């Protein structure tokens, strides 16, 4: 799903900050604008080159807010009016950020479609003036250059970017359910070609500087500098500015041509795109692909194609108009609101609300080198944590270490790491069969088989060797942490850290605290999770252990239940199902544990045994159904109930029940905030991002309608569909919202 991938990328950009406009007030106060020190932009003249430095106050990033817009226009007008100035450099004073995009809150504050469209048109006008500038403007890019930032950059005459990991260019609007609304849909195809432009706009992917250079998105690269007479970041920006000034002069003197030599492939593509028939085929292909991937759930991608098409077929004027109108329409959609809500939630879940832990975790030990254990090891070693991976047998350990190596090596193949970096990262991992070195561990994460007596055994073994401050975290997905902690000498140091498989791909980490878990233990666990790059939700385990994530096994939206069961292992799933059955009783009814039992007895253990619901072969990507399953399935089949078994009903049965469970978690205090619930549901359980998460869904769809549906299913299937009290409350008073 595009959106799934899209959401994954969301985490990489920290765009769209809340606007704080101290400067704005100050300006209104004094009335005159020209004579004032500006708050977002300052500019100086070096020789005949104007250097425009963007630096939004009180924020780590620059966002295109109304204030910045007006100051920028003002400054540019001065530059264009000045006789002394022949060219300009546009640069940010913030390390790690050129312009991160439009101010998301400015968009959210818009009440009507017209307002949004107007914003877009204003932005279009400003960048058009940049593009038509007679004095060459060089965009000097260091750090994120996203959304509106990229649109500004591509309207300049020349672009120079630092070849830094932090320097990324992209149009992530689609991830927020919108489209590039400042002329990007029109300029980008001209600059990098239609296919590459569509790819950028439809995936929202961030492009690293070196790749951008190859695509023609930037003209020159500047290498980041190391320590000199100033901090490296500071000097790198200064150096970038120096280089940009020489290029600005060169452009003004016509010694440098802003035109770029295109490669053969590029020329051929450009030629092919001049043929109407080829163009139509490209649009058709892309549209098909988008429809298939979004299943019609996301309106933005199709509109993007539409706008690009309009621009190419009917000319830029029509294109710009279409762009601003569609931008307005999209920003007003439920989907966009849901995705923007998720973005905010995610920013929230990237913070440690427990504060800094007393002791930094530097040495980590992981018990169990299975899929999860090795996955946790991988995301730990590549953040520089010294990690011990322990298992009971050499075979299991070998497999786990190989998994870590493969994970890192795949990054080398994608050029995200060098082979040298891979090797030095891999040296952070120690594979072993004994408890040697555990005396230095600051945290132990167990990922052994889901069996309470086994977990008790390892907990006792570990507590005999670890230092007093060491935290014991369990990566259980089914067993109550409090029960695991029952045999601990120091239950305040026991916590649940539930990772999602595959650990290196899934962003979510669910931290489960018991009543006895200390605050510092939680702080440590969150700190480790953040270090591992996770989005974290913290849930409380009640006296009666109920867990949000228990839903995982029954609602695996992104991969489908069958695939999920195969991935985690059928035996594990059976175990989990049995445990959950015991705990939840009726609330978790519905499935038939007999199915899993029979599968295990036949040796269909999922991917690890080569057979499960599907057949798995090394090196083969396609999955075939395991035909031996037919007989098992046939023997256990339930007759469908026709009145509640339409396709829509099946979908709603999943969604409403899920929403009901989530709301119950909030009601019972397991979840602290709706935002965490939404993040958990989307990132961990594959709740469709276009719905924004269960709580956002209730707000946008209406609690009453959900309750009605639940009641209908309750009548057909029983108590597992009974709406919970909090949901009923929301249904009864329509003004009640989870997000005010």
């Amino acid at each position: 799903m595009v959106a799934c991938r899209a959401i994954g990328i969301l985490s990489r950009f920290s765009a769209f900050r809340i606007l704080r406009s101290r400067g704005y007030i100050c300006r209104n106060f004094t009335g005159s604008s020209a004579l004032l020190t500006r708050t977002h932009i300052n500019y100086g003249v070096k020789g005949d080159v104007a250097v425009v430095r963007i630096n939004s106050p009180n924020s780590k990033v620059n966002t295109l807010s109304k204030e910045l817009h007006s100051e920028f226009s003002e400054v540019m007008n001065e530059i264009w009016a000045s006789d002394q100035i022949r060219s300009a450099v546009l640069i940010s004073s913030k390390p790690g950020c050129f312009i991160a995009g439009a101010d998301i809150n400015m968009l959210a504050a818009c009440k009507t479609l017209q307002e949004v469209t107007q914003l877009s048109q204003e932005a279009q006008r400003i960048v058009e003036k940049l593009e038509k500038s007679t004095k060459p403007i060089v965009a000097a890019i260091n750090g994120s250059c996203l959304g509106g930032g990229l649109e500004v950059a591509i309207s300049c005459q020349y672009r120079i970017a630092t070849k830094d990991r932090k320097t990324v260019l992209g149009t992530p609007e689609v991830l927020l359910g919108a489209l590039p609304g400042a002329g990007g849909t029109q300029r980008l195809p001209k600059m990098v070609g239609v296919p590459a432009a569509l790819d950028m706009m439809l995936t929202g992917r961030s492009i690293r500087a070196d790749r951008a250079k190859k695509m023609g998105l930037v003209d020159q690269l500047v290498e980041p500098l190391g320590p000199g007479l100033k901090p490296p970041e500071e000097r790198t920006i200064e150096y970038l500015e120096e280089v940009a000034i020489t290029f600005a002069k060169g452009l003004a003197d016509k010694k440098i041509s802003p035109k770029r030599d295109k490669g053969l492939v590029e020329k051929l593509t450009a030629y092919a795109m001049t043929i109407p028939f080829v163009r139509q085929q490209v649009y058709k292909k892309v549209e098909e692909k988008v429809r298939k991937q979004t299943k019609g759930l996301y309106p933005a991608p199709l509109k993007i194609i539409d706008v690009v098409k309009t621009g190419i077929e009917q000319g830029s004027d029509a294109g710009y108009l279409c762009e601003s109108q569609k931008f307005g329409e999209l920003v007003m959609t439920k989907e966009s609101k849901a995705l923007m809500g998720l973005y905010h939630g995610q920013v929230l879940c990237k913070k440690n609300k427990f504060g800094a832990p007393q002791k930094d975790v530097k040495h980590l030990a992981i018990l169990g080198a299975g899929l999860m254990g090795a996955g946790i090891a991988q995301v730990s070693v590549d953040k520089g944590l010294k990690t011990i991976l322990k298992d009971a047998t050499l075979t299991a350990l070998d497999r786990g270490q190989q998994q870590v190596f493969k994970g890192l090596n795949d990054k080398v193949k994608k050029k995200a790491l060098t082979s040298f970096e891979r090797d030095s990262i891999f040296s952070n991992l120690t594979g072993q069969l004994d408890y040697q070195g555990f005396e230095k561990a600051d945290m132990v994460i167990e990922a052994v088989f889901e069996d309470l007596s086994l977990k008790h055994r390892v907990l006792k073994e570990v507590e005999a060797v670890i230092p007093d401050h060491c935290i014991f975290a369990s990566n259980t997905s089914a067993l109550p942490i409090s029960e695991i902690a029952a045999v601990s000498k120091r239950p305040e140091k026991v916590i649940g850290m539930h990772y999602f498989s595959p650990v290196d791909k899934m962003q979510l980490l669910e931290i489960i605290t018991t009543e006895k878990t200390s605050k510092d233990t939680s702080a440590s666990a969150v700190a480790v999770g953040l270090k591992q790059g996770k989005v974290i939700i913290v849930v409380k385990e009640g006296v009666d252990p109920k867990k949000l994530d228990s839903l995982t096994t029954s609602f695996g939206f992104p991969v489908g239940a069958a695939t999920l069961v195969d991935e985690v292992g059928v035996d594990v799933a059976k175990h989990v199902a049995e445990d959950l059955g015991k705990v939840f009783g009726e609330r978790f009814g519905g499935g038939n544990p007999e199915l899993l039992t029979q599968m295990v007895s036949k040796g269909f253990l999922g991917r690890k045994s080569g057979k499960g619901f599907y057949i798995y072969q090394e090196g083969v990507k396609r999955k075939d159904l395991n035909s031996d399953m037919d007989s098992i399935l046939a023997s256990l089949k339930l007759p469908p109930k026709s009145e509640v078994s339409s396709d829509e009903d099946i979908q709603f049965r999943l969604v409403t029940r899920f929403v009901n469970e989530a709301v119950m978690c909030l009601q019972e205090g397991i979840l602290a905030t709706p935002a965490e619930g939404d993040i958990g549901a989307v990132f961990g359980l594959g709740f469709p991002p276009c719905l924004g998460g269960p709580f956002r869904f209730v707000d946008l769809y209406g609690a009453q309608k959900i309750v009605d549906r639940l009641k209908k299913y309750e009548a057909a299937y029983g108590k597992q569909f009974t709406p919970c009290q909090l949901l009923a409350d929301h249904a009864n008073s329509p003004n009640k919202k989870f997000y005010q």
Partner: protein
Amino acid sequence: MTILTYPFKNLPTASKWALRFSIRPLSCSSQLRAAPGTVISVQTKTKKTLAKPNIRNVVVVDGVRTPFLLSGTSYKDLMPHDLARAALTGLLHRTSVPKEVVDYIIFGTVIQEVKTSNVAREAALGAGFSDKTPAHTVTMACISANQAMTTGVGLIASGQCDVIVAGGVELMSDVPIRHSRKMRKLMLDLNKAKSMGQRLSLISKFRFNFLAPELPAVSEFSTSETMGHSADRLAAAFAVSRLEQDEYALRSHSLAKKAQDEGLLSDVVPFKVPGKDTVTKDNGIRPSSLEQMAKLKPAFIKPYGTVTAANSSFLTDGASAMLIMAEEKALAMGYKPKAYLRDFMYVSQDPKDQLLLGPTYATPKVLEKAGLTMNDIDAFEFHEAFSGQILANFKAMDSDWFAENYMGRKTKVGLPPLEKFNNWGGSLSLGHPFGATGCRLVMAAANRLRKEGGQYGLVAACAAGGQGHAMIVEAYPK
């Protein structure tokens, strides 16, 4: 060694030595430190010596080198051990050391010729050293010869050896270009194949791209960045301008030219190249004009970098060799040594951003270790990989901010005075055969101290891998 040798050693010097002399006989050990405090307080102009109690003094009897040539010129048909042999025979000729006295031979080299991977042994055998004298080869990038020397110092100081020949060699005219890994694998497998069928099936796996050759890496393995590129970034980080770099390079060439013309480069020995004329002097010294230099395009960071061919050291062929002895051995054999090899220091730092800052880190450490200050040094001999590198090191040494934030020092290291710095040219002009440069630096320092007067020389160099080296050379009293 006996006390008897002391009068000989001390006689030529003035009263400052007499004072030390008066203390010496009191101790049993001949190397006892000469109570430096007393000396200095009595006679401020006099500096202490750096001898250490219970450690043997190590001296350089003499050192030679072949002329350093631009690669691809007169040495291009030779093999590395030929050059090394030339340096060794030159040393034998210059010092007349009896071959059987030499306990051990150590050579440094960087790009190894696979046929002569222990080039020290091959060269020694060819040069007519005793086949009873063992030899080994060391590698530490541009400070390989330094490593050869300090290994020798260690062997002597620890009493394992008395006489060492240390040197280095590099032949950049020829480098090992290999078959690709796939081709090598195929060839090795073919070797092992037993039947015709096996051979045929292996041959059927051959693809034309197997024939693509594998060149020796010019870039840093850990960072995949070439040294020139890193130097350009380093220069930018310290805001060293193109003009400054060109000016420094011009200085190096001019001084080298002057030294060559005045016959100061006395460590160079003529080398009759088989089939060619005798080479008598370095051929890379080419003073140019700043205008000419300004015309060159950047060599690494294009199109706006500052490091060019004119302000970088060039690929060089050459070899050097040095006779190192325990002081008492040298004196017993009737030698008049040129210098003591005193404290030395190896350092290493980030190979990405501080690749070439070795001298900055090594200099203060070795000075502290020796109890000296910048002011005590009379001759600085720094390896010049790039103008930008030398100037960046200067700026780093002159920066309190850098010292505080990256070196853990309270104050800056201090700038070496330019009038004492590489006065006879440096690697930029004389050339830089990677494995051989270290000995050239030490001999230049020793010869300059003898010629210009002064007691202490400081040798420092940077090396690939982000490593660095510094050593104190003390003039042997005349």
